[in-house]
């Protein structure tokens, strides 16, 4: 069914790609490359970075070294990236928080999340879910709405911290649904999940993948997810949008560099990453970590980060009031 025009366009695009100057010519990388990670070792973002750096080391013939620089909501790593030379030897596994949330929350953040960086390759997203403790006896978002309106401010929800995406989205949830909840902030999601399990906080806004074992066990009831479409891992759970609430939250992951990296290096890295992510074993790992893939070009990714910043800015400001 492919018509001649699309065929021609595709051919032209392929030729154009092949003709891109320097694509195969650049000698980069000639020495080990650092990939900054804004989390301590062990979390899913760190594992993504390690998995991809293994693949890159193999395909590009130089060591890609993961360097964990946790701290200050990821802004320590992003600041370090901003100060690094744009020579193609320092990259960062970028994500939502240091680029779309923290710069709004901390006005003294020393970088501009868009102008100071080149956002090169999009990796995927993790979605947020609203989970209820079975003790509440709720099954749906409508049940929660009724319960919250019967006792305004009586139901507590946990978030992984003030200004975390869970908190921001929970505040937006209250704004658009009219339900009034009581915020109990935690220092990270580990302690929050512990208190959720023991029933201290009956509701949490938390990343979906880490809660799937509890959902299977029946100790967490998923009420809604923040993706645009239903998730393959929770096919029976509606999105917030389906329930008539304008809430979409994606904790995206990508690879970014300080602004000004030569175009041929960016193209070579993007091609190598795209190839790595297309391999079956990487896809299997991503699936097991609950990372939802959707290919984007470098230009699309750059636009996506800018768009996300515009979306999150008013939400973060509202939550921090």
């Amino acid at each position, binding site marked *: 069914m492919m018509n001649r025009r699309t065929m021609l366009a595709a051919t032209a695009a392929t030729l154009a790609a092949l003709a891109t100057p320097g694509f195969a010519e650049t000698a980069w990388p000639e020495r080990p490359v650092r990939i900054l990670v804004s989390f301590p070792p062990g979390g899913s973002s760190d594992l993504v970075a390690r998995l991809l750096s293994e693949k890159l080391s193999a395909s590009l013939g130089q060591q890609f070294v993961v360097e964990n620089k946790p701290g200050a909501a990821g802004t320590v790593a992003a*600041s370090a990236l901003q100060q690094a030379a744009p020579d193609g030897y320092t990259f960062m596994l970028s994500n939502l928080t240091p680029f779309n949330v923290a710069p709004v929350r901390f006005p003294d953040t020393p970088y501009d999340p868009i102008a100071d960086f080149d956002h090169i390759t999009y990796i995927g997203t993790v979605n947020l879910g609203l989970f209820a403790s079975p003790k509440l006896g709720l099954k749906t978002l409508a049940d929660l709405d009724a319960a919250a309106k019967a006792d305004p401010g009586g139901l507590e929800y946990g978030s992984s911290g*003030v200004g975390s995406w869970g908190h921001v989205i929970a505040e937006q949830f209250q704004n658009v649904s009219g339900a009034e909840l009581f915020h109990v902030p935690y220092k990270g999601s580990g302690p929050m999940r512990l208190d959720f399990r023991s029933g201290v906080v009956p509701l949490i806004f938390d990343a979906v993948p880490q809660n799937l074992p509890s959902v299977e*066990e029946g100790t967490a009831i998923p009420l809604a997810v923040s993706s645009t479409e239903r998730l393959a891992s929770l096919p029976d759970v509606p999105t917030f949008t389906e329930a008539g609430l304008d809430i979409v939250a994606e904790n995206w992951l990508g690879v970014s560099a300080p602004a000004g990296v030569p175009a041929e290096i960016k193209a070579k890295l993007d091609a190598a990453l795209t190839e790595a992510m297309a391999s079956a074993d990487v896809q299997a790992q991503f699936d097991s970590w609950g990372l939802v893939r959707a290919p984007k070009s470098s230009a699309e990714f750059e636009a996506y980060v800018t768009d996300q910043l515009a979306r999150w800015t008013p939400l973060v400001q509202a939550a921090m009031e």
Partner: protein
Amino acid sequence: MDLLSNLALGLSTAATVTNLTYCFIGVFLGTFIGVLPGVGPLAAVAMLLPVSFYLEPETALVMLAGVYYGAEYGGSIASILLNIPGTPSASVTCIDGYPMAQQGRAGVALFMTAMASFFGALFGVVVMVLLSPKLAEFALLFQPAEYFSVMVLGLIAASIVSASGALRGLMMVCLGILLGTVGVDVNSGETRFTGGIQELRDGVSLVVVAMGLFGVSEVMVSLRGATKSYAGEKVRMRNFLPTPSEWGRSIMPAIRGSAVGSFFGTLPGTGQTVASFVGYALEKRINRRRAEFGKGAIEGVVVPETANNAAAQTAFIPTLTLGIPGSTTMALMLGALMIHGITPGPRLISDHPELFWGLVVSFLFGNLFLLVLNIPLIGIWVRLLRVPHHYLYPTVIVLICVGVYGISNSITDVWATLIFGVIGYVLRLFRFEPAPMLIGFILGPMMEEYFRRAMLLSRGDPMIFVERPGSAFLLGAGLLLLVLTVVPIKKIVQRLKGRLPMGERVARHHK
């Protein structure tokens, strides 16, 4: 029956050549990592994590866990020999371990450390085998109010750790608490005392404070020539063996230390350092020879070592039964599982029993390896004392800097450690001890966090702390401890028995 079949399953997993080999590699690396001041299990586990891509999940976990608990064995070695803890949890071991070394009994202290570590770890493993599911439920009963109350108890216990008087101890505890308030406030999200420094938003790291106050400052003290070189100890096995009476006095403290350690290990987020501090403080309260504490009492080495090793084992309970890591190193351990597509969670044990029980059985092998490894090494460690200080101490400083840098690849942390070294040195000049400050630094922020969370949950009603029975019990225990500290019970008892001439007056008062 169930237990036996579980153990059999574990044995069949753990006792393969591959798993035993990796278990040995893990504990071997762990011991040496533990010995090096500043370089901790976190860095070692992080370095080994990529290796686990190529291993079976059981094998990877067995090896990484070995590094983790192996480090607790090694951590005390530098505490005893140099007064510099290898890991923060070995800070307490300095208090009595170092005086023992100064008395020429370093070998005995090291021998006892190895035995105590083995005992504590074994105790923790037995607790884990028998009570794992129940303890996980127990950990869930611990809500913010209980956490707060247990911190109060710990802090009261800790203020008497100090050998240089309760007032000085209390002052240092307060200083530690103040230091702990640096960073983003959990409830409001506002930054406190960061001076606009981005790196301080998450507060000061424990390793930075511990290595600065204990490690760097000790090196500075030694530069001043305050510590003398050792006359030299005879490096022979029988010189390392404790006397029969020392064996005898160590039994009950070892059991108490292990029990305290096992308890704190199961509470996510508290960990080995709190366990060893509280264990030591409680022992100092109830032991008959408390006057010898701080001057090289064998109990002062046994208790913290049993406590931190027991805690290192039971810390796996919440991590594996609930999938909630109690520390960053534990999070790494779970990362090793995630590499293999196993999402840690409450169903881990039922879905992967071979993994859990294999790990538990590997603890037994690992601890045996550690004991066998550590006893012959004592001779070598003691010889370390003969290394001239002008080689030894610069090496220590370099190791501390490398280790601290490695935690989050931050040069700021290295500077902070050196600054804390200077602070620690000045404090020591004025005879203030760093130990109570460290415990205040650890417990203070946790206490604040749990207090405010409990108050949030009760909507501002402080009765939550006495209405919940667990919390009320813990607060009562704290109060009792405080009364015991302030009131001279012994004198009163003696008076009542009429041994003191004042007895009559006491009796008259009672009419």
